[in-house]
């Protein structure tokens, strides 16, 4: 067991972990942050995407010990300080970019990172960037649309949601 200290959603946390504790297990079991979901065991689905030191990371592909000293943001840390939904979260609701909600945290985290890197992505750029996230419910139509809307683009010409 080793002690790991990091900042998660702006709050300092310090816990004992074993060397093979995955970041997903640390967040879900030790911190009870269950918004980070586990949808597969091959790092394919993207339901567990979080931000670590400003980078988009699949939390199932890193050990908790690797996050020593890191700034970690999970879906629980994405809303505005007053509790209202952030622009990207609100766009997902406004454009029905989610159904069962299981892939949604990873989608939101990926989308947020995309918009940081590319504030006005094209449809193609969005679809390309979502390569590591699988959604089984929405057919991606409304996810792509929501991300375009969150970037300030006019989506009224896209088929109705």
């Amino acid at each position, binding site marked *: 067991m080793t002690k790991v200290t990091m900042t998660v959603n702006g709050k300092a946390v310090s816990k004992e972990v074993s060397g093979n504790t995955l970041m997903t297990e640390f967040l879900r079991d030790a911190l009870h942050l269950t918004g980070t979901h586990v949808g597969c*065991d091959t790092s394919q689905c993207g339901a567990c995407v979080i931000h670590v030191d400003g980078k988009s990371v699949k939390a199932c592909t890193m050990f908790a010990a690797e996050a020593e000293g890191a700034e970690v943001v999970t879906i629980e840390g994405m809303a505005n300080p007053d509790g209202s939904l952030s622009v990207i979260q609100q766009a997902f609701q406004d454009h029905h970019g989610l159904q069962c909600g299981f892939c949604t945290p990873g989608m939101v985290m990926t989308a947020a990172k995309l918009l940081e890197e590319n504030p006005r992505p094209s449809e193609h750029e969005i679809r390309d960037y979502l390569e590591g996230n699988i959604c089984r419910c929405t057919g991606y139509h409304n996810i792509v649309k929501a991300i375009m809307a969150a970037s300030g683009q006019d989506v009224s010409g896209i088929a109705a949601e």
Partner: protein
Amino acid sequence: MPKDHGIGAAQKRREDVRFLTGAGQYTDDISVYGQTYCAFLRSDVAHGTIKSIDTSDAEAMPGVLRIFTGKDFEGIGGLPCGWQVTDKHGEPMKEPGHPVLAQGKVRHVGDPFAAVIAETLEEARDAAEAIVYDIEELPAVVNMKAALEEGATKVHDDLSDNLCYDWQFGSDQTDVDKAFAEAAHITTLELVNNRLVANPMEPRVALGEYNRANDESTLYTTSQNPHVIRLLMGAFVLGIPEHKLRVVAPDVGGGFGTKIFHYAEEAFVTFASRQLNRPVKWTSTRSEAFMSDAHGRDHVTKIELALDAENNFTGLRTDTLANMGAYLSTFSSSIPTWLHGTLMAGNYKTPAIQVNVKAVFTNTVPVDAYRGAGRPEATFQLERLVDKAARELGVDPIALRRQNFIDSFPYATPVAVEYDTGDYVATMDKLEEMIDRQGFEARREESRKRGKLRGLGVNCYIEACGIAPSNLVGQLGARAGLYDAATVRVNATGSISVMVGAHSHGQGHETAFPQVVAEMLGIDESMIDIVHGDSSKIPFGMGTYGSRSLAVCGSAMVRATEKIINKAKKIASHLLEASEADIELKDGQFTVAGTDKSVAWGDVTLAAYVPHNYPLEEIEPGLEETAFYDPSNFTYPSGAYACEVEVDPETGRVEILSFAAADDFGNVVNPMIVEGQVHGGIAQGIGQAMLENCVYDENGQLLSASYMDYAMPRAEDVPFFQVDHSCATPCTHNPLGVKGCGEAGAIGSPPAVVNAVLDALNAGGMKVDHIDMPLSPHRVWKAMQG
């Protein structure tokens, strides 16, 4: 002006806020005090005799509490099949036992034969790996045709062969024979409906908890129908009285059919938690899901269409082999029969139809309902066949369809169902408008200039939703009723909890159901909450599958709300000192007709619970009503779909350029949710057509057992979809006039995609009659080479 509340409003979903902030509560998010963890040991061979299982080393490992094997389940019921099919000779289908843990033999890769309970998940998994076992591998049968051959390896020793049933259905043999004997043209097609894995993004989870104080068990599980699981597990597997069993299905991360069924893991954790007096939790990995969640589709079919000299459809006959896998999953037997055979008429007035289905046991994971369940298989056969017929006859495929459309309703098909309403011409008209068919040839020419082959594929579909009525399905072999139930509990302050038997796993019930009740009562939706998913809180309902939530459970909710209104009017008449017959409810006010005397909703509800000065001999206190609703018929959504593709003649790669869907769902409560459902269905259908394939080798090894090998559709694989539902012909027999929309996309889209690719190839000068799904570049390229 679009409505902003009530029925027909595209209201944003209230459940989204919790899902978007990580506050949803899925089953794996639940942990209870004293929880232990379970790991299953699953067969790595498709067929084998269990010679020995030595658990002694594993039992001594750290944290291990108990190891179970099949022996612990001797004398305990196996997993039941919920639908008995009678074969064409009047014999019941064969029903082999399906033990919770395999006994004597394993019959598919993934068949569980031991399970470890330990203090941590890691300890459970380590100990499972340390179990020493000897399984003598036996030859496996994977291919259905081979499984039916004389002398084939038997999946179940106690059965005479691998044939579960040989089912025949439809018109008289003489009528069908006559249609073919007199046909001017016969089109024949052989095709495969590829095996799929449903893959909801949330893997299955089961957490069993036992309370010794009151002898009650609670099962938290990823289920689409908690009451059905409670009944099946209580009555048929573990023998626990239902009132001592509570089943909770909280937020569920997608189902698509695969979470309808009662699985061994659910019964196991419930049983084990009682044995250990500790909660037991099992969380499936995705790799486990591939070999333990029921698969979908997997049909091999030969289908023939007879046409007269004027190109009218005169006869249809179809022979299907349907894979059941190694055991009968909960509703598996009904899928290739009653949910597939009865839809073989499609949208066409073919007078003589015969459906033959042989259901076959193989050493593969059990196959059961997956989004559409039987209807996609029927639609794919029929719509591929009609396209082939049009090509052979040299006629326009849309014109051939239009010529043969059923055009008057109600219409009784030769395969025993009666379509109540529909307008297939209208949906096809709408589709042609949406896709700019006039401009297609110019687009094709533009593609040709770039060296690409462009194709347009069109098809129709019809499906049967809102599964019911109970007395009919009972005659057909269902071992359950197929009504649903709702309780409307009005609180003293006028707010309402509606307890429903339907289960929401992405369909937005928490938003759509209150829209209906709010509209009926004239109050704000925010006053109404939906309670679902907990057998201790809801009336006995049948859950959500087959697009039955609004059509069946929503109708129960309407009936219960009508009872509420009737009673509230009685109370209002007392408060207003007027005749009950003169009371009107509008905008949340009870008014005496023709006067300005009124009393508000909240005053009436308060009076119901504060019955001072109240004629109690006439009106009971309280305001809570339950209704069970059993529909008189299925509902029949229908539509027309189109796909435009470009094929690269050098590589066989197919790009989907556009996809359009014109659906008739009857009345629509929340158009935003409905369109989202169609989008998802189309993507799954495109997945089947282009990417997804569950593949076994000849020894029964599952080759596509993770997302590394099973190609799930991703954002780049699909375009924006055009979706329309304006061609509405309301259902005539439910109070909402709704038909159901959840499966349409998955039913309507595969033939559109395949028809489009074949159109591209044939227009490019290649004669290709058919390519089996998925249309991988390799398959398309091979087909292009002749």
